């Protein structure tokens, strides 16, 4: 039996059992479509996060108090435990290198902010004028913190746009005095809307001078120091330099972690890729289910077509030919199902793209080829048992049953 005839024969039997064929195509298609849509969702999320990070500004290093074992992004990075304080003086000592363009210390805390009886609990960031440039934020209104002596705790603040709207509504905020904790600050500016930092929206924060934040939260330590290196090539040298400088200042103890933006980016990239893989794996289970369905239906088909199999043997088909015919049926089913699933999946990702235009949905090629590959493999794998059973039928018995 030639390959072409085998395929044609398999097609006639698929065509002969249309309802069964459609059902199996559907099962396979759902599995493949699920993989395509879910992986493109995962990939879109990953790309979104990575892009967000890239938007932070390029040549950035972040100094975190506490030593992380790996030097990468460990638990301490985000837990922010502080074995030794990182001071404002530490921060400004870092500017004395050609590799460093600018630095911005950061203090963080939460406090109620109120104006004329309206009160909101928001995140308070204490920093310096350099922060605006360093993080590529823009102002919607007014000015950012003034350049000047950073140890001066002047009573001014910059509002995130959401805070502004919730406290002031239609009223003008500039020049007004708001109460933060137990102090009063004058509003000198409102941040633009596009700002987001490390997944934290800047719309919901209030920025005050770092010295003011230190006294507000009654602490002399910093939460982070942001350092912008003088160009991409300067990053490694800046990293060493920061480490060395701070070790000297901390009596020879290496008790800070310096991470580069690249490292953070790589970590998030890894985490989200793993997530996408996991989701793809879960979707692939439906492929296995489709495979089992194919096996079950093929087994039924073998029983239903016993006398046909007997006939083929009587006409001179070796067991091998019969096995190949049934395998071809299973393979055709899964291939056609996979193609159908691809079409549905593509349509699905297109639809997602229409619904969420600012995310980039496209199924990664590895997921698409894996889905089709797994579909084919399951089809053939689960088609194997029925095909073997068909090939081993005793022709006399098979013919006697009508």
């Amino acid at each position: 039996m030639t390959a072409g005839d085998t395929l044609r024969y398999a097609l006639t039997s698929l065509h002969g059992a249309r309802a069964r064929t459609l059902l199996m195509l559907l099962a396979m298609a759902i599995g493949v479509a699920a993989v395509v849509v879910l992986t493109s969702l995962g990939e879109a999320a990953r790309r979104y996060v990575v892009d967000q990070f890239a938007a932070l500004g390029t040549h950035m290093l972040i100094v975190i108090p506490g030593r992380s074992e790996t030097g990468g992004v460990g638990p301490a990075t985000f837990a922010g435990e502080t074995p030794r304080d990182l001071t404002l003086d530490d921060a400004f000592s870092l500017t004395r290198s050609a590799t460093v363009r600018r630095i911005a210390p950061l203090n963080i805390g939460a406090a109620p902010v109120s104006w004329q009886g309206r009160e909101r609990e928001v995140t308070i960031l204490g920093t310096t004028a350099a922060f605006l440039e360093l993080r590529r934020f823009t102002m919607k209104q007014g000015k950012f913190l003034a350049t000047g002596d950073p140890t001066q705790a002047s009573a001014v603040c910059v509002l995130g746009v959401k805070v502004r709207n919730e406290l002031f509504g239609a009223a003008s905020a500039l020049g007004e005095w708001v109460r933060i904790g137990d102090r009063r600050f004058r509003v000198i500016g409102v941040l633009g809307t596009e700002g987001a930092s490390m997944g934290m929206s800047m719309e919901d924060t209030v920025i005050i001078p770092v010295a003011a934040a230190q006294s507000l939260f009654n602490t002399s330590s910093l939460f982070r120091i942001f350092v912008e290196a003088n160009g991409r090539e300067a990053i490694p040298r800046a990293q060493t330099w920061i480490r060395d400088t701070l070790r000297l200042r901390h009596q020879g103890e290496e008790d800070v972690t310096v991470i580069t933006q690249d490292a953070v980016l790589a970590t998030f990239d890894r985490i989200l890729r793993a997530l996408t893989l996991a989701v793809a794996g879960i979707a692939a289970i439906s492929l296995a289910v489709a495979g089992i369905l194919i096996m079950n239906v093929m087994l039924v088909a073998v029983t239903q077509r016993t006398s046909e199999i007997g006939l083929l043997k009587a006409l001179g088909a070796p067991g091998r030919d019969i096995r190949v015919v049934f395998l071809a049926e299973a393979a055709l089913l899964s291939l056609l199902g996979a193609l159908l699933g691809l079409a549905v999946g593509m349509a699905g990702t297109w639809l997602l793209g229409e619904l969420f235009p600012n995310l980039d949905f496209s199924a990664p090629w590895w997921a698409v080829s894996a889905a089709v590959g797994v579909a084919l493999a399951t089809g053939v794998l689960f088609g194997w048992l029925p095909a073997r059973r068909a090939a081993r039928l005793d022709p006399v018995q098979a013919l006697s049953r009508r």
Partner: protein
Amino acid sequence: MIELRNIHRVFHVGDQQVHALNDVTLSIQPGEYLSIMGPSGSGKSTLLHLIGLLDRPTSGRYLLDERDVTDLDDAETARVRRETIGFVFQFFHLVSRLSAADNVALPLVLAGIAPTERAQRVAAVMQAVGLADRAHHRPDQLSGGQRQRVAMARATIMAPAVILADEPTGNLDSASGKEVIALLEQLNTRGMTLIIVTHDADIGRRARRRLKMMDGRIVEDDSA
């Protein structure tokens, strides 16, 4: 050319043994016309299946064209069946989703013969069984007699040396039955060995050599 030596065929049903063929020795020359008769369960079909290589003897030897075919492997048996044996069954055994012509072409497909040659040969045998105008009908659009003629066209398309017919008229009215027998005898006059298993004494009598079976043994072997 067909030579059976001390053939036994024993079926095991539970802990019971059924001796379907009991020491059958038989020799059939090319071009012979044989009928096999006998009561139900006497082993006629079993004998035919063995000759057609659909079944294997429990013991004994089977020589076909002087070649021992008792222990051939699956691929070789299939080949011998394909090239030297044509089956005609009581229940026609047509593939219902295929047209008459496609059913007839099946042995050629299995033999890997190219479609153009297939079409010619199918047309020729369909003509020979008088169904040229029914080639594209499906089996359920044909009468019983027509179906059996399609089955005969299929059995002969590989020009086998032996035609084995197990109660070919068992499901037909007497007129269609006569047509079918006439066609089979026509094949025999062209030189094919013809073996018919039948319950119909009139049909059985027509053969030049008549076997009678009883309890798995050949009890009569008349050549007239």
